[in-house]
C-alpha cells in the first residue's frame, strides 16, 4: 500500500531531477535541420521530390528494409526473410508489436496494401518500376507476407529499401500528404508551409528509441541565407549545404563541424548524341579533351568532388579510373575538331538551377571557347529543363548530376535524353541483368564503363561530394548519401 502513495512522489522527484539535470548538463534534445527545398507534400509514395524522403525517410516512415549510413541494406519492419531456390518467392517475417502513429497495428495486411497500391494501374508512385516485377503479394498470417516475382531479381531487397516502398496504412494514407502517419521513431507534429516541418519522438516506437525529443526541418533555398542561418546559430545542421565556398570558414570555427562525404551523383556534361555534329564521336572526344575537370571542381565546387572518367561511382569496388582517356588537352581537341571539319561550332548549353551546373557551365563555356567551340548558355528552371532537355531532347549540352545509385544501365536505353544507341552496350547490360556470378558481373560492369568512356558519350566531370555543416556537438548524422535522406535515428548531442 505504501508504494501506491510514495510512487507519485518519487516520480515527481525524478522528473524534477531530470529537468534539473537537463538544465545543468544542457544535453540538448532538439535539433533544427536545414534543407534547401521544401517538400511539396509528405507522402513518400506520392511524389518524386527528394525533399519528401529527406524529411520522412527512416524518421516517420519505414519500409520492410532500409538503407543504412554506409549504403548497405538492412532489415527494418521485416525481421528476416527467406528466398525460394528459384529466386521468385520472398517470404518476410515482420516484427511484432509495431503500431502506426495513430495507434493501429502494422501487420501483413498493411504490407500487402502498400505494395499493391504502389504497383496498381492508377498508382501515382514516382518509382513504379521498382514494383513492376511483383506478380502477387499474399498474406500468410498477420506477421508473415509472401511476395512472388515474375522474374528473379537480385536487387529486389534493395528496391524495398527505397522511400517509395515504405509501409503505409489504408486508414491514414489519404491524409498522408499533409499529415503523414508511419511506423517510425518520430511522429509528425506540424507543417508550417513555406517554413518548416516539426517532428516529435514517438513514445511507442517498436525499435531502439531515439535520443532526440523533437526535430525541426527548416527550408532555406537561398545559399546566402543558408550560410547566414548556420553562422547565426538558427540551424543546428545543414546536411546538404549549398555553399561549398564557405566551408573553410566553418572548418576554422570550433563551433562547427564540416562533414564531407560521397553521393551517388555522377555529374556529367550530358551530350545529345543525335544532334548535328555531336553524332560525330571525334567532336565529342574533342569536347572531352577541352574540359579541365580539376578547374571545374575547384571553380564550381571549391575543391569538393572526385574526377570521374566514366559513369560510375569511384567509391564502388568495380570502378575503373578512365580519366586519362579524356585528359585535358586543348591542342588535341583543336586537332580533332579540324579533322572533323567543325571549326566554327556553336552549341547550346542548357543549365538547370544547381550551383554545380550554373557555375560549372560558365567554366565549361570558357574552356570550350578556348578550343574554338562557341556556346549559348541558357539557364533553365527544373520544370523547363525536364520539358526541353529531358523529354524534348532539344539541346546540345547540359550539365546534370545523376544521383541514382548504379545507374549505368540508362545508357542502354536509346530513347534516354543522351540518345546514345549502341547495340554492343545494350548487349552488355542485357548480359549483366542475367549474370549471377560475381566475377562475371564485375567483368561486365568494367566493360560497360570502358564502353561509354571510349565512345565519349558524355563529358564525365566529377562525382558530386556531399558537403554538410553541423554544430560540433552533434553526432550521428550520415556522412554519405546512399539514398536521399536525413536519418535522425542515430543523432544525438554531446554534453
Amino acid at each position: 500500500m505504501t508504494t501506491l502513495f510514495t510512487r507519485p512522489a518519487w516520480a515527481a522527484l525524478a522528473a524534477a531531477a531530470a529537468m534539473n539535470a537537463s538544465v545543468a548538463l544542457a544535453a540538448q534534445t532538439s535539433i533544427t535541420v536545414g534543407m534547401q527545398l521544401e517538400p511539396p507534400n509528405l507522402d513518400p509514395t506520392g511524389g518524386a521530390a527528394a525533399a519528401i524522403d529527406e524529411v520522412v525517410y527512416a524518421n516517420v516512415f519505414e519500409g520492410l528494409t532500409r538503407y543504412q549510413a554506409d549504403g548497405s541494406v538492412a532489415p527494418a519492419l521485416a525481421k528476416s526473410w527467406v528466398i525460394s531456390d528459384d529466386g521468385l518467392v520472398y517470404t518476410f517475417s515482420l516484427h511484432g508489436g509495431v503500431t502506426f502513429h495513430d495507434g493501429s497495428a502494422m501487420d501483413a495486411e498493411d504490407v500487402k496494401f502498400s505494395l499493391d497500391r504502389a504497383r496498381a494501374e492508377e498508382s501515382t508512385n514516382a518509382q513504379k518500376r521498382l514494383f513492376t516485377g511483383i506478380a502477387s503479394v499474399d498474406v500468410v498470417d498477420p506477421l508473415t507476407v509472401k511476395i512472388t516475382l515474375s522474374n528473379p531479381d537480385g536487387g529486389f531487397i534493395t528496391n524495398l529499401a527505397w522511400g517509395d516502398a515504405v509501409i503505409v496504412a489504408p486508414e491514414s494514407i489519404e491524409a498522408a500528404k499533409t499529415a503523414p502517419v508511419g511506423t517510425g521513431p518520430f511522429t509528425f507534429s506540424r507543417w508550417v508551409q513555406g517554413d518548416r516541418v516539426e517532428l516529435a519522438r514517438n513514445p511507442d516506437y517498436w525499435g531502439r528509441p531515439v535520443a532526440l525529443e523533437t526535430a525541426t526541418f527548416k527550408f532555406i533555398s537561398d545559399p546566402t541565407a543558408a550560410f547566414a542561418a548556420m553562422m547565426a546559430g538558427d540551424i543546428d545542421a545543414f546536411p546538404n549545404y549549398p555553399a561549398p565556398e564557405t566551408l573553410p570558414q566553418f572548418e576554422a570555427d570550433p563551433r562547427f563541424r564540416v562533414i564531407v562525404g560521397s553521393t551517388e551523383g555522377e555529374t556529367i556534361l550530358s551530350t545529345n548524341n543525335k544532334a548535328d555534329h555531336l553524332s560525330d564521336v571525334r567532336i565529342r572526344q574533342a569536347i572531352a579533351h577541352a574540359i579541365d575537370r580539376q578547374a571545374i571542381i575547384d571553380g564550381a565546387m571549391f575543391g569538393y568532388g572526385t574526377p570521374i572518367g566514366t559513369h560510375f561511382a569511384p567509391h564502388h569496388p568495380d570502378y575503373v579510373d578512365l580519366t586519362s582517356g579524356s585528359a585535358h588537352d586543348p591542342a588535341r581537341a583543336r586537332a580533332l575538331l579540324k579533322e572533323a571539319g567543325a571549326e566554327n561550332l556553336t552549341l547550346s548549353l542548357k543549365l538547370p538551377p544547381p550551383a554545380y551546373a550554373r557555375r560549372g557551365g560558365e567554366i565549361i563555356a570558357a574552356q570550350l571557347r578556348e578550343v574554338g567551340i562557341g556556346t549559348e548558355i541558357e539557364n533553365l528552371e527544373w520544370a523547363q529543363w525536364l520539358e526541353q532537355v529531358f523529354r524534348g531532347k532539344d539541346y546540345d549540352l547540359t550539365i546534370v548530376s545523376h544521383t541514382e545509385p548504379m545507374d549505368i544501365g540508362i545508357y542502354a536505353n536509346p530513347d534516354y535524353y543522351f540518345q546514345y544507341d549502341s547495340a554492343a552496350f545494350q548487349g552488355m547490360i542485357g548480359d549483366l541483368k542475367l549474370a549471377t556470378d560475381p566475377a562475371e558481373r564485375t567483368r561486365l560492369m568494367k566493360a560497360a564503363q570502358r564502353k561509354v568512356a571510349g565512345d565519349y558519350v558524355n563529358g564525365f566531370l566529377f562525382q558530386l561530394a556531399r558537403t554538410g555543416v553541423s554544430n560540433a556537438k552533434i553526432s550521428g548524422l550520415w556522412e554519405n548519401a546512399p539514398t536521399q535522406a536525413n536519418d535522425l535515428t542515430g543523432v544525438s548531442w554531446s554534453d
Partner: protein
Amino acid sequence: MRPRLPVTLVAGLALTALFAAAALLSLVWTPHAVDVLNIAARLQPPGGDHLLGTDHFGRDMLSMLMVGARTSIAVAIVAVGIGMALGVPLGLLAAANHGGVVDDLVMRGNDLVFAFPALVIAILITAVFGPSAFNAILAIGIFNTPVFARVTRGGALSVWTQDFILAARVSGKGAARISLEHILPNIASLLIVQGTIQFSLGILAEAGLSYVGLGAQPPLPSWGRMLADSQTMISFAPHLAVLPGLAIIATVLGLNLTGDGLRDHLDPRLRRPS
C-alpha cells in the same frame, strides 16, 4: 537656391558620365578579358595587377564592372525607349481626345497595367520566354509605358489650354498635327526629366531581375548577377559583393541627381515658388 542647381546637376552628370564612359570604353578595351577564367587567380583582393581584385572565377573585377555597366545601361535605355515609344503616343492621343472614349480607354488601360504586380509579371515573362536580357527589357519596358502615357497626357493637357494652341486650331490644323508640332516640343523637357528617372529605376529593376537570375545570361556580366553569385563569399571576399552594389548605387544616384537638376534647370514651371 541659385547656386544649388548647378551643383546637383553637375554632380549627377559627372557620375552618369563616368559610368557611361566606362560602358562605352568596355566596347573597345577592358583591363583584362572577361571571358577568360583563371581559377588559380580567383578571389584576389583589390590592388596589384587587378585594381579591384578578381572574382570567384579569377576574372578582373574592374573589367567585369565596366562590361556590367554596359549591360545595365543598355537594358535600361532600351526599356525606357520602349516605354516612351508606346507611352508618349498613347498619352498624346488621350490628351487630344480629352474626355472622350479613347482617353478613357487609355487611362483605364494604364490603371490596369499598374494593377499588375510588376515583379511577378516579369518573372512570368521569363518563365514563358526564358531568361535573357531581351526579356528583362520587355518586362521593364511594359511597366514603363503607362508612366510615360500618364506624364505625357498630364503635360499635354496643360499645353492644350494655352492660347497659341487655340490659334493653331483656328488656323485649321488637326489634332494630330498640333500634337506633334506644338504639344510634343513643349513637353519635351518634362519627358526628358521623367526619362532620366525611369532610366534610374530601370537600372535598379535590371539589377533586381538579374539578382534573381532573370536578366542577362552568362557569360555576359551584369551587376545584379555579380552580386548574387558572390554574396555567399561576403565574409572572406567582401569586395565581390560590395563593388557591384556600389556601382548600382552610384549610377542610380547619378541619374537621379541629373533628373532633379534637369527638372530645376530645364523647366522653370516645375520649380517650386519660393
